[in-house]
């Protein structure tokens, strides 16, 4: 057991850091912002980077750091393992924990430069088309994980909710197909295209979660649904691609139609309904579920990076194509 950990302390996850004009640093945590002096921020970076290293366990190091740890604790940047609740109700898990974490997770998920550059006019219609192709596959691949989640669930009420969700979602890839057709891709181009590896992982990870734990699967789904509820966050992106890259209205409207349908079905409330089915979630189970939720947010970031990396290179094929024994 290493130094900081020896004292039963853990660091909270931070999601953003901004230097302020007055020389302080604003460190963003879920639901709170801590303002640290430059010296404290540097010490914080150092101590968190080494927190788990064995050589950070010497008594001397601990003494030096004890003052800092007290300061960080006072700012709410650390927590004690013994303070983790042994169990919470399903509803509390959703309302008091998940709801407050989701905003920070989505902030991390969408912190990739892709969004900023596309909005500023430094992307391309090729990138938008590539992004549509990957969304098409991702939505089509719902058929790889949604029915699996229903099939592997042992709670009758939750199983029914998964089944209903699947019934409402299974064919939504047609929205993205319509958008791609409006960008002059043929039906054959779309059908014969191949998803990027991270697009496949989005559904493979959901399949993994479905096999492991129904609530872990549900939280991944909730993180993804969380990306579709706020029109103020996604409309400017679509309006910008029309303005900057000459993307036709018909290649954007199906996306709006899809988002409207999701809102109509109230899919963003599904996770709360599922959590309601659980009288109690113990700390270990909660850790597993939250880890899946956080990892799903990280998956979105990595997925965006894969799309950016592949489609920003003009020599990569658009659409991406499978191996062809005659053409390779």
């Amino acid at each position, binding site marked *: 057991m290493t130094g900081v950990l020896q004292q039963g302390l853990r660091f909270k996850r931070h999601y953003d850091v901004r230097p302020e004009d007055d020389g302080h640093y604003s460190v963003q945590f879920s639901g709170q912002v801590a303002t640290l002096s430059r010296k404290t921020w540097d010490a914080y970076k150092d101590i968190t980077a080494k927190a788990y290293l064995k050589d950070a366990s010497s008594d001397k190091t601990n003494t030096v750091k004890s003052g800092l740890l007290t300061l960080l604790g006072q700012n709410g940047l650390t927590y004690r393992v013994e303070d983790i609740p042994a169990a919470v109700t399903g509803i509390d898990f959703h309302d008091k924990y998940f709801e407050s974490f989701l905003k920070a997770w989505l902030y991390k998920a969408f912190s990739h430069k892709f969004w900023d550059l596309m909005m500023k006019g430094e992307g391309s219609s090729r990138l938008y088309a590539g992004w549509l192709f990957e969304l098409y596959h991702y939505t089509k691949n719902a058929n790889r994980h949604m029915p699996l989640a229903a099939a592997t669930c042992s709670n009758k009420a939750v199983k029914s909710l998964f089944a209903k969700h699947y019934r409402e979602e299974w064919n939504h890839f047609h929205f993205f197909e319509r958008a791609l057709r409006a960008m002059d891709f043929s039906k054959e181009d779309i059908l014969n295209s191949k998803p990027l590896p991270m697009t496949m992982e989005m559904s493979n*990870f959901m399949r993994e979660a479905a096999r492991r734990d129904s609530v872990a699967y549900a939280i991944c789904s909730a993180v993804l649904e969380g990306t579709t509820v706020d029109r103020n966050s996604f409309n400017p992106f679509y309006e910008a691609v029309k303005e900057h890259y000459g993307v036709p209205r018909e290649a954007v409207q199906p996306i709006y139609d899809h988002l409207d349908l999701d809102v109509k079905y109230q899919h963003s409330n599904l996770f709360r309904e599922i959590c309601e089915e659980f009288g109690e979630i113990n700390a270990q189970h909660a850790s597993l579920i939250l880890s899946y939720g956080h990892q799903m947010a*990280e998956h979105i970031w990595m997925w965006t990076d894969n799309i950016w990396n592949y489609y920003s290179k003009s020599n990569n094929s658009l659409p991406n194509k499978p191996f062809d024994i005659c053409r390779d």
Partner: protein
Amino acid sequence: MNISLKRSAKVREVASEHVAIDYLGFSYELKGNAANIFSKILPVLHSGNLSLQEITDQVGSAKDDVKKLLRLLGVHDLISGSRDPDARMSGVEFYEYHRKFCHHWLKEIYSHPFWDKVVQGTATDAQILGFAFEKYHYIEGAHEHMGIAAANSTKELMPHLAKHFCEEYTHGDIYRSGLVQLFDNDVVLNSQPLPSTRALINFLNESAAKNSLAYYAANEFLQMTENEDEDDSALNSTEPVSSFYAKMTEHYPYTVPLVDAFIRHTKLDQQLGHENAFFEMCKDISPLTMSEVHNIMDTTRSLVDVLKLFMDGIDVFYEHFPEVPRMPSTLLSE
């Protein structure tokens, strides 16, 4: 049928009366008139939208010369051709075909920018430690995908897949033995892989459940990254593996126990003779249809892409989010 230059062929040089093309480890040169015609029809060959007749019509006066050039390119397999859909490929023929592509694709892994950052000493500590954790997770993942492969195996391949699992399932422990010199065992065991590492493991898990031979053919590519002779497996043309590790420990002295573990694993894999396992497997299989060859090759190509993603993750994710090790969430951690 439309004609295109093979997608794996790279035109290295286009000059007046001289063209150089690389394809699957071979180099081809065109000179004089042939080179000039090639330069003229190259955009059409890249697009693959025209038939032989349409290409010759477009070029105009030199129709016979174009036909002669395309015939020559066809003889050397440089342009797309049709395959008899009823044809079969023996297991040994497939082994050679697959190996030829894998050798070519290995270059995409060895040229990843992350290797150079390590050699130059410009990688961050988070990237270096992250690299060690991700390698551990990837090797530990063998427990998952090799188990799934053995459990879903065809009759012919079961002995090979069972043997491979039995020989490999403990290899994650070798990597862990390096990491526990720097971190507590519980920390290593509870750490979480990057999304891109999970992508690699999950891809192998899914392939293992679907098609034993396709899974093993993809796995063969991974094996080649461990088993190639030092001269062949240079991380770039001048930097063999041992020299890479020497640079790593020179720039990052704390990695000595990690590198020891990497090297122990590579040597163990080489001693186990896994480099022959795929050949032995291919000798046992019935001739493959073209559709089967297509599916297996596409699985291996997908594995190459996901292995590149694995490298991207170490490089870019740890650059943006330098949290190592990546610990699970709790009710109070977020």
